[in-house]
């Protein structure tokens, strides 16, 4: 079976019509469904948080059968994810798309779990430490996109589970959990 890095590709990745946006409604719905799953799976495996619609993205091109998705098709598939709440456009021009293979609520839960696992229920941690520290190493939080992290933090802040306090620079932001 064909692979993209660590990612195992399904058989239909070599099916040429998979790369042409199908005009017939029922067929297109099924096609979009398969693309959504594949994009989410791939991004999760490779920890990809942002897809630039006109940038190189390994999934959107299949060199074996020499097929590539058109801009229209890329936008259609990503829009389908957006409408399901599993992605968000980062700009009005729909050029960058934030992929939420965990929804913001799920990310918030992961954060709380992280705090518990590291005995930080009342402790303080910097955002840098969450993203690149040794504590987060091996967890899904490692390397998390800043935008997504901020959204999860905001959600928890509203619930009173933590307080974000600013340091002297943006790199210096800290979190005080109060779980």
């Amino acid at each position, binding site marked *: 079976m064909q692979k993209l890095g660590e990612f195992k590709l*399904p*058989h239909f990745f070599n099916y*040429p019509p998979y790369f042409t946006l*199908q005009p*017939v409604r029922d067929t297109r719905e*099924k096609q979009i469904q398969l693309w959504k799953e594949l994009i989410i799976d791939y991004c999760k495996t490779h920890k990809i948080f942002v897809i630039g619609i006109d940038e190189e993205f390994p999934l959107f091109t299949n060199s074996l059968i020499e*097929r590539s998705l058109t801009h229209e098709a890329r936008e259609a598939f990503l829009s389908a994810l957006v409408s399901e709440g599993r992605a968000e456009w980062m700009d009005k021009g729909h050029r960058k798309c934030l992929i939420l293979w965990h929804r913001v609520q799920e990310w918030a839960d992961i954060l709380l779990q992280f705090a518990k696992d590291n005995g930080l229920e009342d402790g303080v941690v910097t955002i840098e430490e969450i993203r690149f520290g040794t504590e987060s190493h091996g967890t899904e939080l490692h390397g998390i996109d800043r935008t997504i992290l901020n959204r999860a933090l905001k959600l928890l802040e509203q619930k009173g589970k933590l307080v974000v306090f600013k340091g002297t620079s943006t790199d210096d932001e800290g979190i005080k959990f109060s779980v």
Partner: protein
Amino acid sequence: MARNSLLPVKLTDSGRPVLSPNEIECFFLSGVDLLCEDEPNTWFPHLKSGLLILTTHRLIWLPDATASGNASSVPLASISQIFSHKKSLKSVFASPRVRFQVSPSPERGVATSGSRSVVVTAVLRGKGDCDAFVAKFWENWRARAWEEAESGTSSGSNAAAGAASASSGIYSSDGTVRMVGVSGILRKEQEMWESTDKSLQDAFQDLNALMSKAKEMVMLAEKMRLKLLSGPNSQTNATNDEEMGSKEEMQELLLSVGIISPVTKESAGALYHQQLSRQLADFVKVPLERSGGIINLIDIYCLFNRARGTELISPDDLLQACSLWEKFDVPIVLRKFDSGVMVIQNKSQSDEEVFTKIKVLVTKPDALRAGISPSDAAMTLGVAPAMAKEHLLSAESKGILCRDVSPDGFRFYINLFSEIERDDMYLVKDQGIYASWVRAIHAHG
């Protein structure tokens, strides 16, 4: 006594009268009654509101869909008199009537009670130019076109008989010197050549006359144009307005020249398309069979006009004629594909049959892997590539196929999307078309 003593008329499948050789349809009138006022309820049937067709040989009456009565005809040969159209105050309000006398002529199949002549009245209830009809009626009746046909056949048989009896003599039966041997052939050639030459000369003379007239017309038009152009400059201000008015009028006149009188088109319109539609239905049968039960409208347009020779019809007329088929009981239909392509096809032609063929074609190992192009399908289906593409597109819209657009072109594949499990993208069931496809691409390498 026979109920209907008029001649029956043979009709084609689409309901057009079968004409004899050399017979030409000259005039159509709808909503015509034929009746005999002298002897109501006797031998002559009362034919109500049908289509009256005047040909060079006959008056044909066809029933409308709603009217009763059988298609009948009166040979012009059996008409002994046409009564002139009386103009009275009454006739202004009533439907126009045309009366003519039919004489008994048993050999032609028109029997009257006893041997008396009867006066038949045609009541023209529909719209239509009654006076033009009467004029044409007279013309055809006087022209005696049927006699030509008869004399043609009879002289033919006479000649054959004569040739048999007088084969040894030097004179043929009609008194001319028979052509014998090489000199005979040469003389015949010479005669033919001379007659061709004469007719050519005649033709060219006509052409010359036309050309000289055309030249005059062009000159006239040119003159008018020049006058219009120079008009404003040469006039004083006082008369300018008036000049402008007449100039506009003139230009309008010039513009309207050459447009077919809309009245004529209007009055002929409905019947014209109806008849055209039926004729087309008869014509289409053969080419339709040859092209596998479905044919492009454009192809039919060409074939039909080629068959018509000089009396060409416009695409619009063709379309109208085709769309009228819905109203008649004809075995063909006009069909519009989603792409806008229009075809004529047999009613019996089923899409299912075509789809089955396409499915078989597209599930062959090579086609599974590389798809099919419209020309591949054209070969299998036995239709033109453009037509095949329409079939493929409609199979696609049914979810049988899906498309692959790439720099290599436009190809169609069997639709695998419906086969793939949504919850497990990696699952390939042992059975089914998805499995066959996976095998096909792996077999290839």
